[in-house]
C-alpha cells in the first residue's frame, strides 16, 4: 500500500522472520527464476562457440574444435561442477514449486499449500544430494 511513509526501524526490522510458507515460496521462486533466466543467457553464450566450430571438419573429428574444448575445459573445473549442482537445485526447486503453483492455479490442494511448499523443499534437497555423484564424476580435484 502506501510507501510514502518510512516507518524506519519498525517497518524494516526483522520483518522477514514473520514470513509464512507462501511468502517464502514466493521469494524462492522469484530468486530461482531469476537465476534460471540468467543461466539461459550464459548458456546460449557458451553454446555460441558452436558457430565458430562449425565447418572445420578436421578439428571436429579430432575433438579440438573450439566448442568441444570450451565445454570440456569448463567441465574440468571443479567450481563449474559445483555450480552445476547448484543450478540443478535451483531448477528442481523452481520446477517443483512451479508445479505446486500450477496446482494452485487450478484450485487443487489449496489447503495444503504450506505442506506442498515444504515438500518441494525437501524433494529438492533429496534430488540434489542424489545427483551429486553423477555430476561430480570424473572431475579432477
Amino acid at each position, binding site marked *: 500500500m502506501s*510507501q510514502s511513509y518510512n516507518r524506519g526501524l519498525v517497518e524494516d526490522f526483522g520483518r522477514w522472520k514473520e514470513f509464512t510458507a507462501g511468502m517464502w515460496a514466493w521469494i524462492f521462486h*522469484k530468486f530461482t*527464476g*531469476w537465476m*534460471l*533466466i540468467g543461466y*539461459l*543467457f550464459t548458456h*546460449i553464450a557458451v*553454446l*555460441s562457440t*558452436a*558457430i565458430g*566450430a*562449425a*565447418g572445420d571438419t578436421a578439428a*571436429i*573429428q579430432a*575433438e579440438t*574444435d573450439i*566448442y*568441444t574444448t570450451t*565445454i*570440456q575445459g569448463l*567441465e*574440468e573445473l571443479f567450481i563449474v561442477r559445483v555450480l*552445476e549442482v547448484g543450478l*540443478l537445485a535451483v*531448477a528442481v526447486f523452481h*520446477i517443483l514449486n*512451479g*508445479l505446486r*503453483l*500450477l496446482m494452485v*492455479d487450478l484450485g487443487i490442494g489449496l489447503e495444503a499449500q504450506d505442506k506442498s511448499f515444504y515438500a518441494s523443499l525437501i524433494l529438492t534437497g533429496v534430488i540434489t544430494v542424489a*545427483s551429486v555423484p*553423477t*555430476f561430480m*564424476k*570424473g*572431475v579432477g580435484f
Partner: protein
Amino acid sequence: MAERYSSFVPGGTAWLLQRITAAFLVVVLAFHFFQLHFVNHAADVTFQGTQARMSNVGYFLTMVLFLIAGAFHGLNGVYNALVNQGLDGTPKKVVLAVLTIAGVALVVQGTYVALAMAGWT
C-alpha cells in the same frame, strides 16, 4: 477509484502463456537434463555428439521451441516481478522494450547456434 484503472490491459494472455510454457518446460527441461547429464555426461559433450542430436529435425525443433518457451517464460517472469514491485510509467515501458529486445536477440542467437550445431549453416 475506478477511473484510475481504466487503461484496459488484459494481463490474462501473458498469465496463461506463463502457465502453458511452464507446463511445457517441465517436460522438456527434464528431458534436457536427463539427456545431457545422465545419458551423456556434460563433460563428454563434443561437437560431433551435439551435431548428431541436432541434425534430427524433431530434436532441433524441440530445442528451438524450448528456447522460445524458456525465453518467454523467463523474461515475462522478470517483467511480472518488476511490475509487482510497482514498476510503472516510462520505466515500465523501457523495461518492457529492453526485455523484448533481449528475448528476441536470445532466440535469434540461439536459433543460429542450433543451426550451426546441426551443420545447416
